[in-house]
């Protein structure tokens, strides 16, 4: 399929419906960012998603779009419940990969003298890396509780407070989770990975708020200039990977009976009305809840490490959860399509929910400001806190971008990093980094990512989410 891209305005590009596409593609991007998008295969992926049964509105892509597998990363698509489908590949292997931001009562000056002790202490205190085991070893019965109750299970075990749940998407527990649908392999892989960061692009970052764009929203989120924050990026670990993998294989065996033509086998899916789709959604919810419990535990491990290393009291640290939001998920939500309210299954694959002010699903504390949208950048520049805006409700099924988005393959990044010390380069910028290996740092080096500020400018200008605060890294740990 030849991809014809039409510019709509400064921040929107359209792929007109052709061939098997059921709807147009709509990409949020600017003149600069779209150049890299044209060079990989992500536009083709936007068009492929547009061919899936029951898709409504547009096949959407956020400005951090890049080539994924099946769906593009940064892709959003909503499907009507009677004719539509759910696609495990449209959620991704790392179900409920997401971000959690905590504010503190500390300033950068409070942390700076201890940063070289704090970052290695965080690295030691928070299990990370491939297949790492956590501080918790669950029985199968406990794992089932985690899968159903999510972050609330962690709170009950002493990891955090009930107030944290109101500051977590879906209260940290997606309804409909059913551990009975899980394979033995999935169950086994979840037993020892709760409270682990993972590897690759997962990280924990100590940051400072360097700019406030929207004072009222920042105040509502508990953010102020000069304040230290902590950002965690992690997901459902091997538990979620296995659940996705299991259902891709199950649906692959059944796809012919539904007569669904797939332009890419990774887009394998099942009609939402089918039993297998319902079982996948029940399993996906288990993984989503596991991920929320995981980030709840990780937050507490970070808090304990900071208290111990900085030698301060909980009151002096003043750590408070700002928000926890997922960016790999499929959810049944109500949206307005062609002027009519309807229930749809929204897939967000590398995209963040962004509810606008006043939305009934928002906790009372954020109802006026809108939902906090957490956008991690690369480890050498900035991250952003945004607030959901009206445009997202109108155009993107309440979705925004999820990060900077890669622009360079891992092998290109390794080549570019040859002969350099990425760790020293970051250190020269005042950012202390601790990682398991040089290779991860090279693959994840700042140049491998798009300019996150440009990505954020697009969603801000397009009215999907508005800028609230900018965060600069002080210290980073990576698996």
């Amino acid at each position, binding site marked *: 399929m030849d991809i014809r891209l039409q510019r709509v305005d400064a921040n929107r590009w359209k792929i007109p419906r052709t061939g098997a596409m059921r709807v147009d593609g709509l990409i949020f991007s600017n003149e600069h960012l779209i150049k890299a998008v044209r060079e*990989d295969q992500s536009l083709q992926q936007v068009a492929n998603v547009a061919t899936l049964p029951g898709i409504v509105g547009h096949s959407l892509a956020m400005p951090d779009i890049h080539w994924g597998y099946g769906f593009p990363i940064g892709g959003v698509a909503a499907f009507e419940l009677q004719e539509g489908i759910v696609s495990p590949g449209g959620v991704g292997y790392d179900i409920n990969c997401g971000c959690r931001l905590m504010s503190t009562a500390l300033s950068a000056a409070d942390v700076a003298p201890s940063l070289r002790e704090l970052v290695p202490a965080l690295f030691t205190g928070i299990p990370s890396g491939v297949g790492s085991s956590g501080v918790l070893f669950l029985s199968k019965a406990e794992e089932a509780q985690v899968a159903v109750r999510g972050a609330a299970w962690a709170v009950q075990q002493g990891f955090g407070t009930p107030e944290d749940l109101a500051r977590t998407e879906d209260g940290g527990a997606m309804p409909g989770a059913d551990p009975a649908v899980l394979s033995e392999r999935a169950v086994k*892989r979840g037993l020892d990975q709760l409270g682990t960061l993972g590897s690759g692009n997962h990280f924990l970052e100590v940051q400072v708020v360097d700019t406030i764009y929207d004072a009222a929203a920042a105040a509502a989120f508990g953010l102020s200039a000069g304040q230290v924050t902590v950002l965690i990026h992690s997901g459902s670990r091997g538990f979620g990977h296995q659940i996705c993998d299991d259902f891709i294989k199950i649906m692959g*065996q059944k796809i012919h009976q539904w007569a669904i033509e797939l332009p890419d086998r990774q887009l394998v899916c099942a009609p939402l009305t089918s039993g297998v789709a319902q079982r996948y959604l029940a399993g996906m919810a288990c993984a989503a809840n596991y991920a929320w419990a995981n980030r709840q535990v990780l937050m507490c491990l970070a808090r304990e490490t900071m208290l111990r290393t900085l030698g301060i009291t909980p009151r002096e640290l003043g750590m408070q959860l700002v928000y926890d939001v997922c960016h790999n998920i499929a959810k049944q939500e109500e949206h307005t399509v062609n002027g009519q309210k309807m229930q749809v299954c929204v897939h967000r694959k590398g995209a963040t929910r962004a509810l606008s002010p006043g939305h009934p699903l928002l906790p009372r504390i954020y109802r006026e400001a809108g939902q906090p949208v957490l956008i991690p950048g690369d480890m050498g520049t900035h991250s952003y806190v945004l607030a959901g805006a009206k445009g997202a409700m109108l155009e993107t099924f309440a979705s925004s971008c999820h990060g900077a988005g890669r622009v360079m393959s891992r092998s290109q990044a390794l080549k570019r990093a040859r002969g350099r010390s990425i760790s020293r380069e970051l250190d020269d910028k005042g950012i202390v980094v601790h990682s398991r290996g040089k290779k991860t740092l090279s693959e994840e080096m700042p140049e491998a990512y798009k300019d996150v500020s440009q990505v954020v400018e697009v969603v801000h200008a397009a009215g999907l989410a508005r800028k609230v605060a900018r965060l600069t890294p002080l210290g980073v740990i990576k698996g």
Partner: protein
Amino acid sequence: MSKLKLGQSEIKLLNHTADFGVVVRSPSLEDLFQDAARYMVRSMVAFPEGRGVLHRTHLDVCSADLADLMVRWLGEILYLFQGEGQLLAAAEVEEITSAGLSAEVELIPFDPALHEIRFEIKAVTYHQIEVAEQDGCWEARVIFDV
């Protein structure tokens, strides 16, 4: 695209923006499956030859076609590492058709003191998966989620 040799096969790395892809080219279908699995494991973990206690086991994998077989076979090898902590040291495919394969595999328990982890592969994907015979050789294209 960089190239390297492994066993009887030639491996080319694909420049995928977010993930990790390879094209494996081999003189036979058996070599293709054996070497794709060995390469996948060696790209994740560096381990010295001849160290660690080997044990042998038998694997049977069923499939709808050869491309499906490649994803399922590599998925089994990946699970042995991720779920069981066993690294593939060697594989001998004894029988292979588009409906499945039988193989004898040699495994070494993963030992963090001996084995250096290079990076994580989360899953073997069906994205752009291909297995085909070309000019007397077998070629597979596989993209991994990392």
